[in-house]
């Protein structure tokens, strides 16, 4: 049921397919796959692998946006969790390092959720606080240096593989599955959509809207913490200055491309991840094409514009009117 694609998802799927086709045109080996050291390699795998952090962020972000919120702190949370995991990796067993990093993520989410739900601060301002402070906290943890580690267990999160599939991809897929089961298998999905659609009415219907809001911010930060572990494992170190920098914007973009309105309400987990893949497929395509990466930003903006135009109700009514006029 979770994977049931809504009708409105057509635009995103077509966009992803179109971009993959273009990638294939600029780089003929794009769909080639090869197995090496028990792990799949190839441009397509690369898209999934490189896109994993943003896909994870968008998975949490889509829930926050569905409640009519936004979380600007996910990049900073990535930095914090990466710093913690990297600092602990070589002196403690990997479950301790990972649990501490994820725990820190949950605490960050609780902080955001309390600011938004209990204290009633506007989400964009409330999470801005952690966006700024979080990077400072991460730098304090690493004492301003880039902390490196060698623990192969933690490195697995970035470069390992399960049945040939890169670990980050496996993690994203599992988190998509878990989030889907938690949200759609329980009543959370409906109650989150109701909270985002009309918080006053939902509260008057007995929905614990504050609880919903705290829960989605915690889940969002948990996803960010996981993304932070992957990012740190990938470079075998934590760079508090640059880990996750600006990724909150990519995550918001992925959610919007995925068709979830910033005004809250209806959301789709699958399409948010699809949005993240669209962004990454573009990035990879431009790198492969040999154009300078500066083009990336302009092309990204153009694709976003096209996807949004396709979803625009105003445009839909214009095209219907044109069709009627012709008939």
């Amino acid at each position, binding site marked *: 049921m979770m994977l049931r694609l809504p009708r409105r998802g057509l635009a995103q799927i077509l966009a992803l397919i179109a971009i993959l086709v273009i990638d294939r045109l600029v780089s003929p080996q794009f769909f080639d796959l090869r197995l090496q050291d028990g792990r799949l390699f190839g441009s397509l795998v690369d898209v999934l692998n490189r896109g994993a952090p943003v896909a994870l962020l968008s998975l949490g972000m889509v829930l926050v946006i569905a409640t009519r919120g936004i979380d600007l702190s996910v990049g900073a949370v990535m930095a914090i969790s990466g710093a913690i995991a990297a600092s602990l990796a070589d002196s403690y067993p990997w479950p301790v390092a990972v649990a501490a990093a994820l725990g820190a993520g949950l605490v960050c989410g609780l902080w955001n959720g309390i600011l938004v739900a209990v204290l009633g601060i506007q989400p964009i301002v409330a999470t801005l606080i952690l966006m700024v402070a979080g990077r400072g906290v991460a730098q304090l943890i690493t004492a301003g240096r880039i902390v490196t580690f060698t623990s192969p267990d933690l490195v697995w999160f970035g470069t390992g593989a399960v049945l040939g599939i890169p670990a980050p991809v496996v993690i994203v897929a599992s988190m998509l599955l878990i989030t889907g089961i938690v949200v759609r298998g329980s009543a959370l999905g*409906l109650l989150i*959509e109701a909270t985002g659609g009309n918080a006053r009415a939902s509260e008057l219907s*007995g*929905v614990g809207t504050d609880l919903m809001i705290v829960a989605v911010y915690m889940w969002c930060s948990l996803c960010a913490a996981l993304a932070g572990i992957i990012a740190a494992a990938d470079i075998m170190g934590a760079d508090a200055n640059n880990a996750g920098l600006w990724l909150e914007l990519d995550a918001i973009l992925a959610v919007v491309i995925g068709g979830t309105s910033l005004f809250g309400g209806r959301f789709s987990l699958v399409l948010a991840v699809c949005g993240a893949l669209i962004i990454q497929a573009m990035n990879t395509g431009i790198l492969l094409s040999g154009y300078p990466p500066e083009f990336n930003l302009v092309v990204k903006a153009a694709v976003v514009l096209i996807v949004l135009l396709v979803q625009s109700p105003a445009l839909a009514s214009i095209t219907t009117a044109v069709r009627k006029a012709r008939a």
Partner: protein
Amino acid sequence: MDQGVFPKPPLLEVKGLTKTFGALRALDQVDFSLRAGEIHALLGENGAGKSTLIKLITGVLSRDAGTVVLDGQEIAPRSAREALDAGIATVYQEVNLLPNLSVAKNLYLGREPTRFGIVRDGEMKRRAKALLEGFGLHIDVAAPLGSYSVAIQHIAAIARAVDLSARVLILDEPTASLDQHEVAMLFSTMRALAARGIGIIFVTHFLDQVYEVTGRITVLRNGRLIGERPTAALPRIELIRMMLGRELSEETEERAAREKTPGTPCATFSNFGKTGYVAPFDLELRHGEVTGLAGLLGSGRTETARLVFGAERADTGSVTSEGKPIRLHSPRDAVRHGFGYCPEERKTDGIVAELTVRENIVLALQAKLGIARPLSRREQDEIARRFIKLLDIRPPDPERPIGLLSGGNQQKALLARWLAIDPKLLVLDEPTRGIDVGAHAEIIRLIRELCDKGLALLVISSELDEIVAYSDRVVVLRDRAHVGTLGDAAISVPSILSAIAADARAEAAREGVT
């Protein structure tokens, strides 16, 4: 106010103004006239058509029929801007100025005195100071408007409007957030303006203020003109009757004969209240009984409903449900105990517009069951289909976003939301507001049916006929306090009117003393 010996032509003459929204007649052939130099109260309960009338006069809405004549000239403004240019200014309850700019800048926004294209700040301040002094206001015009009290902001807004050569000034509930001293200040400004020949339309729901400051009163009800009277010649009880009482032209609801034994108590509120919200009250709601809440707008009806449902947290008193004390701190608590609440503001407090009819119907039940016990899609479909059939919700499509339904059908879907939790107590705030005539009768029939099934009902309505038709008991409110209860035998429109006005008379007597 001076009415003159010779009938002068009115400053503003409105004839046959009509506006419909869908199937709803918001304003039906309304006439209205305003003389120069008078303060004219425009009264009516929520949904009477006051704001529609103002919006039609000021061009915010476009009219379906009717004419507006200002100073002998027919006008048809298409926006508030055009109305202002014609000489009609409106000041709303929420001041529409910019609180972070200085008072002077607000007064001259968009028409700043300039020399060679440069704003002459000193000149602007000097003029602003002079203008406000004309209103008896000696304040620093360079300070931000937001740093002053709401009353001063109102007077500044009025000063700006009048300075824009307004001849008609519309004040839409300007006193709602003012204290007594500030109201006095505003009234002296209004009187000074009237003396200068400006016609003022004053919308309020404070009757004391109507008698204090206005010369004439126009009452609207259900979008129709009920009457226009000189204030001095209209006793309070008559005014209340005009605002709430029955219209002979309307189909009247018959009061059904009752022959039932009193139900067992469902919820009992003792000394229940909240400071500054509703004075502590005792209220017993019984199974199989409809308790009506009657009173004027602002008397504390909705406030009582919100307290009963836990939407507002009481700070005194206690509640028992089925004889056992319960905690009632939030709507969640209320829903857990089987209470339901259909709020007056359907759009902002009731429906989740984007979600489907099915999702809206199951929302309260799902909230009650909790996150861990989701209703399966099949159960949801079954519930939605059952209630769509039972309440005849149209179109009968559970997957349609509820925002696309008509007001009456949205109201039925909200009723369904609460019926789905199999409630013990249902609070209905203006259940027939903004609903077309057909659905209106159906909602009333539903209320009776629910009551017969043993539900306890607490119903708020501005329509006294309705209250009389379905209530077993009527609680009368005034000034945010419960002032009386009418038992089954005593319920009639005249008895409710005199219960509301009895207190008013007592207060009028008190005023006479002081």
